[in-house]
């Protein structure tokens, strides 16, 4: 049986929909269920829903054979020690520096305060521009930070830009294209090659 860990949220919803469209049946799954582990009716595929930063942990340690997670998480984590085998082309978005609309000049401050869920990516971005920054790690609702004066700018993913707009923010610099990736445990990649191929095909992903 192939065991796949999916990042909870948008990615899990998209992949589950694709799987169901591809003919896999998950009797216990529904969009709003709180269950975290499902097996398909034929017992060939097990799906686990985990928080996105944990996907690579499950896969590396072999608790799952493969996982689907955003490239943003893989970059932020650094060496995940798993194989990145396919760009799934879903969950497309960009990493961007954003701040209050029309106040782009704030980027010229000598020491910029940056709020982000991605301190590693933020640090690398500003280091490459030789800009001194003070990075504040947040765990959610990063858009709040510039509004309440916690930070000058944020580094976060932008999909449609709606959240930014609704909070009076705009993207100053979109610097990284992102999408969901299929990662694989190093041993499972070889041992379960056939099952993986089948999974990829039924999801409608190109190999």
């Amino acid at each position, binding site marked *: 049986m192939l065991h796949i860990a999916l990042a909870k949220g948008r990615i899990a919803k998209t992949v589950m929909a694709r799987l169901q469209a591809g003919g896999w049946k998950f009797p216990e799954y529904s969009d709003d269920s709180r269950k975290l582990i499902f097996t398909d009716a034929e017992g060939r595929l097990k799906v686990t829903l985990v928080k996105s930063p944990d996907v690579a942990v499950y896969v*590396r*340690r*072999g*608790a799952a*054979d493969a996982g689907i997670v955003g490239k943003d998480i893989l970059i932020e984590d650094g060496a995940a*020690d798993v*194989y*990145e*085998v*396919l*760009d799934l082309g879903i969950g497309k978005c960009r990493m961007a520096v954003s701040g209050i609309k029309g106040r782009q000049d704030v980027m010229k401050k000598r020491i910029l305060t940056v709020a982000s869920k991605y301190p590693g990516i933020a640090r690398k971005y500003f280091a490459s521009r030789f800009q001194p920054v003070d990075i504040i790690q947040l765990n959610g609702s990063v858009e709040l930070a510039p509004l309440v004066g916690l930070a000058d700018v944020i580094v976060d993913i932008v999909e449609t830009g709606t959240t930014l707009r609704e909070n009076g923010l705009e993207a100053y610099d979109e610097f990284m294209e992102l999408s969901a*990736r299929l990662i694989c*445990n*190093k*041993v*499972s*990649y*070889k*041992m379960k*090659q056939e099952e993986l191929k089948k999974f990829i095909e039924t999801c409608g992903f190109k190999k």
Partner: protein
Amino acid sequence: MHQTLEELQMVHEEEMVNYDRIQTAVLQVMHRHGCRIIQTPTFEDYDTYGRYFPGLQKEMVKTIDADGSVLVLRPDVTLPLVKMVAREYPDTRQLLKFGYVSTVFREYYGRSTHGKYFLQSGVEILGDDSPECDGEVIVTAAEFLEALGISKMRIDLGTVAYMDALFADLNLPAESLARVRQELEERNLVALRETADQLAVTRLQRDVLVELPRLFGDYGPTMGRAEALSLNTGMAKALERTKAVYEYLKNAGYGDRVQLDLGFTSHMGYYTDSVFKIYADGALYSMISGGRYDRLSAQFHAERPACGFGMNMNLLYEYMADEEMLEAAQPSADLAVLYDQASPELIRDINGWRKKGFAVIGVNTANTVSSDDFRITVRWKNGSYEMDGQPASADAVEARLRRL
């Protein structure tokens, strides 16, 4: 990220017993192959390792010597071994076989265990550059597992010479080459495809390059694919040599367990030819990895071919625990004698039994003792023994011990 409580990483008796059994089994395999057992120094020079294995620098445990120089705790066995051989054995064609079981101080991750050091066992054969030598090294590794009752295993055999021969033709700038190697090592298929599309290589070369990380599977079909993708004599020669190694494995009775994988990379140029990993059935990590490293010895001014492998015995232990292959804890003593007041006869009897080879503990009744710790219990009271509620002589107790 991993917060193992170092102070709680105690090895208990039942683990000691099992480690001892595992160690005895692998040492016997080494002896059957005529290996000399060695132990390399616990402390090594930091700069030496920094030079030859820069990738290990962060992982190594550093310490400072009395004179202020920086030392590391043994991060591997191969390097000091090759260095010692270069110094002590001037004849580079002399066949030398070494085996070891040593603690190496490097991080490792299992399914549920993690540590900053582990017990490693391995074999290194020096002086022989034949494919038969590679075959013997792989067979020895497989025998390590078999000696412990693990017969279901998978041997992934490859050669880095195939990939290196392709690179030799591509004439890539050093920077691109490093990037391609890195992406191959990580089997980052997504990035590799992007990189390959930008290289100044022929369409054919590009196709072979992106196929490399997927060039694995059953021996026969994969060898066929590899031959079809072979673009120069170097690649063809690498495959010929791999076939000879496979022949050895087949004749030694391991052919059905071999899978071919030409996606193995050479770890910063360390490996030069055959490489292999062995997986026990059901384990999602390799316990054994090894290969041929013909260039390492030249660093110590002696051209000497070499091939070897290492096995992580902590991972093996975890696997055996998961598969319920370990031996249960045994009572530490055969007999416990409980007494209120010691006497000369009691002391004489207890020590006499020990000299006869029985494990005996004397327990003052003021102490407590766990009943799991011994097989028989007798009580010493008013100058005589009491066994199963009946008075018993010292001879009767001894007779009972003999029946165990």
